[in-house]
């Protein structure tokens, strides 16, 4: 009963037709391009900050004591709160980037910190005796940390997607998938909403799969 009523649940044909329509307009590609750029930027920013904080808190107990509550706070605060707070002072196009970074940071931070803390002291001592600092990092320290880092990095990429789309819906930048979804919702263009959702799922799966293949290749060396 619901299928065929394009207002409530569009048919697969209608959805695919809408996908084609989206992909044949310049605005559609601009939205996709800018959303991807925001995801990649936010994700890389989050990973970089997460690793930096992990190095800091795993080496300095005072930093750990001071910053650990902040991590818990960031983890428990809803994405929407961050997006709405940021909207007050930040350009709408940047909000999704920062929100994605905020989502990725605690995940990468916690896993990397645990990996740093749990690395083998015996191997580190051996490396202190025999290896230069660079060789120690390359052959002893990183191989112990990277498998765990890669595993979380892969999961957090999916979270970055969700965060950027949600933040775009709330912040309404000029171009973006979230912006398009919000506009379509206002006009009750359900088939187009389904088309965007389908595109988001496909792109997210493709990106994560590509990332996993890269990680598997990188991780093979340490199996």
């Amino acid at each position, binding site marked *: 009963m619901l299928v065929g009523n394009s207002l409530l649940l569009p048919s697969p044909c209608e959805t695919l037709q809408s996908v084609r329509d989206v992909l044949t307009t310049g605005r559609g590609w601009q939205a996709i391009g800018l959303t991807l750029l925001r995801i990649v930027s936010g994700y890389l920013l989050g990973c970089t900050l997460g690793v930096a904080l992990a190095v800091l808190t795993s080496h300095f107990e005072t930093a750990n004591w001071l910053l650990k509550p902040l991590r818990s706070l960031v983890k428990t605060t809803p994405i929407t709160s961050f997006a709405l707070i940021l909207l007050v002072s930040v350009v709408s196009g940047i909000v999704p980037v920062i929100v994605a970074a905020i989502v990725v940071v605690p995940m990468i931070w916690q896993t990397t910190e645990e990996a740093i803390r749990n690395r083998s002291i015996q191997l580190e*001592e*051996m490396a*202190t005796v025999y290896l230069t600092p660079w060789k120690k990092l390359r*052959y002893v320290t990183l*191989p112990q940390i990277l498998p765990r880092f890669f595993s979380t990095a892969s999961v957090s990429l999916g979270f970055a997607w969700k965060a950027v789309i949600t933040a775009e819906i709330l912040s309404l930048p000029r171009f973006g998938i979230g912006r398009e979804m919000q506009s379509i919702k206002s006009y009750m263009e359900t088939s187009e909403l389904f088309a965007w959702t389908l595109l988001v799922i496909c792109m997210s799966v493709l990106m994560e799969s590509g990332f996993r293949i890269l990680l598997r290749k990188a991780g093979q060396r340490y199996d």
Partner: protein
Amino acid sequence: MIKLSDISIRFGEKQVLTNFSTQLPDRGVVLLSGESGIGKTTLLRILCGLTQPDSGTITGLETRKVSVVFQEPRLIEHLTALENVSLVSDRKTAVRLLTDLNLEKEMNQRAAKLSGGQKQRVSLARAFSFSDDVVLLDEPFSGLDDQNKLRAARLIRTAQLALVVTHDATDAELLSADKIITL
């Protein structure tokens, strides 16, 4: 001459070494023996700089290159035996030492796949590949059969100075030790 003067160290409640002093010759094989837990490994760790004593001084090691054979092989498991050894020296030396220790066939196997005794020999090869000036060895014969013990002993005797921690009295004979220090 390497001189250890008044070395003391405590771990929590336990006093491990108290004003320990001794002298090591510049050359030869020196055996360090004593009861379990008396501080033999701690002394080795102090000599290679991994542990700082609470008090005391060591002189004569400043200009010398020290390598260590730990009680556990401590190999990088995802690297091959040859890669583990050549990481600290050149490939030619690594191949020669692994061959001397009867590891030609296992050279290109990942360390993770080697047996305990093979890992121990790779660890010996790594130490001598890095330096044969001062070699500190903690129970170097553990897990080795008689044939490989002889090969290892032959290699240990090539060091300028080898300080060997052991609890086995027969090791002194096997190594033709020049000096025995009992803690």
